[in-house]
């Protein structure tokens, strides 16, 4: 075999290799254009919290001034009954009425510590002054001094609306808009869903190291189609 033939053989080999590469690249290009886009969206199951659950207002409804109660679907004032039926027994006792109320207010177990004996549409301060339901904080403050002091300057209690009173209306909630006067301890509550992505070392509860539930890049496997486009 001559040197020239060797060289031609080499040439042919080189050329065929080039074609293989070229065809490979063309196939790759076709693949890029024809396949679906790579879904690199790391999907974790979204936590759905209805906006209505989050109450950006008062925790409970306070009794208005003058006091209105709904009895058998009818709006009544306290005095609607209490002027008809006179309370004769002015001492602590078990009531046959107002069974819907739970009285759990520490040592304060007597209706007339706060309610007026004569006019049931009114409350009463310890010095005997009749007050309306709009002056509840004053009444509560007679016992809960430090809390009342804090509430007056805005440290205790909830503020709504505007922090800057010059730019809009500010609402300061009163005692009975958060606390039930008959059972004033703030109740335990249900809590909203916790985070999917946070871990905090060994001490963190509910961490199973073999479970990849808390991986922020965990891929959403099931179902295969986009779960949110089907009104999930």
């Amino acid at each position: 075999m001559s040197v020239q033939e060797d060289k031609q053989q080499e040439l042919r080999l080189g050329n065929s290799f080039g074609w293989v590469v070229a065809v490979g690249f063309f196939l790759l290009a076709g693949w890029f254009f024809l396949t679906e886009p790579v879904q690199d969206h790391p999907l974790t199951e979204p936590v759905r919290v209805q906006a209505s659950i989050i109450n950006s207002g008062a925790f409970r409804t306070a009794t208005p001034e003058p006091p209105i109660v709904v009895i058998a679907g009818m709006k009544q004032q306290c005095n609607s009954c209490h002027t008809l039926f006179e309370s004769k027994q002015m001492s602590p006792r078990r009531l046959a009425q107002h069974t819907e109320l739970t009285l759990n207010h520490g040592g304060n177990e007597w209706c007339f510590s706060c309610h007026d004996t004569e006019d049931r549409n009114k409350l009463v301060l310890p010095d005997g002054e009749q007050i309306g339901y709009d002056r509840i904080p004053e009444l509560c403050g007679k016992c809960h001094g430090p809390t009342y002091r804090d509430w007056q300057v805005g440290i205790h209690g909830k503020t709504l609306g505007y922090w800057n009173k010059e730019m809009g209306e500010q609402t300061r909630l009163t005692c009975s808009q958060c606390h039930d006067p008959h059972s004033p301890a703030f109740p335990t509550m249900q809590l909203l869903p916790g985070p999917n992505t946070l871990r905090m070392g060994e001490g963190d509860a509910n961490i199973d190291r073999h479970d990849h539930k808390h991986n922020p890049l965990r891929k959403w496997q099931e179902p295969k189609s986009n779960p949110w486009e089907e009104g999930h």
Partner: protein
Amino acid sequence: MQLPVLNNATAYKGARKGATRRSFLRKSVAFAGGITAFAAAISPLKDMKNAPARSLEDWFRDHYKELTQEQKDTLFADIAKDVKEQYGVDVTIDQPGPIPGVEYGYALNLSRCNGNRACVHACVKENNQSRSPEIQYIRVVEMPAGTFDLENGSHNFDEALVPKPDHYYMPIQCHQCADPPCVKVCPVEATWQEEDGITVIDYDWCIGCRYCQAACPYWARHFNFADPYIPEEEINPDMAYLSNRPRARGVMEKCHFCLQRTRKGRLPACLEACPTGARKFGNLLDPNSEVSQILRTKRIFVLKEDVGTRPRFFYYFDERTTRNGRGTA
């Protein structure tokens, strides 16, 4: 007269050489490879359903063009248009500036917080955070009573009812530090502290290097690992450029004290959602504001004081607790 003779022999030889079969094939392969590489490089374009309306403006801003107010308005309108195309929601975008004479402060009453996470989800809703992958500005840590060691805390508490006896709850979010380490480390100045103390991020300027996330001692900064998912019906249409407009993949985000609300005088969303009234917000420079009263009269502390970040987020206690019926104040 003798004309100069051009010696074309070399050029001719080269031309001859270029015309060989082998070099033709080699060039063809190179050409095909080049075309393929180009096709691969531009292939993401075919997935782009809605070309951003502001791409030219983006280009100009990448090249350091100071925007006039009119141009800002145009930009905000273009972003609103993009949001409309992406989510089908009509939104308003602006950028309220800091109010002169105002420095924001936040105070949180650990005696009152009951860990129900209403603040977390109100914040997600208000600030259009991604629901998947999940981004939450506030993390609530359940702590055993009698310790401040965060390593004993838990994020993933899941009781039927809170508060759990003998535990307290510490929500942590951006502390809007007066000496913010996140701002110092940003290589492109995409984040800065404004006059009123709020540290903001320009999501269009952020390159997503996550240095700030590493620098923050409070875990306040969050990275968009993927395209955010926000349900269309849950978009908050009241948006600002540096706060709650929808973010893109690959940028950082964090709490900004709801500046789209607070710079218009309103209270932050987390505060209004808190059922216990544990959260307090206001102007530190006003001696009669709620936060100023708290700083003056209560026992307060800041988290990780020793790292020298000087937070504007304060934790405080009541004299006695009424939690779990253990006190009577």
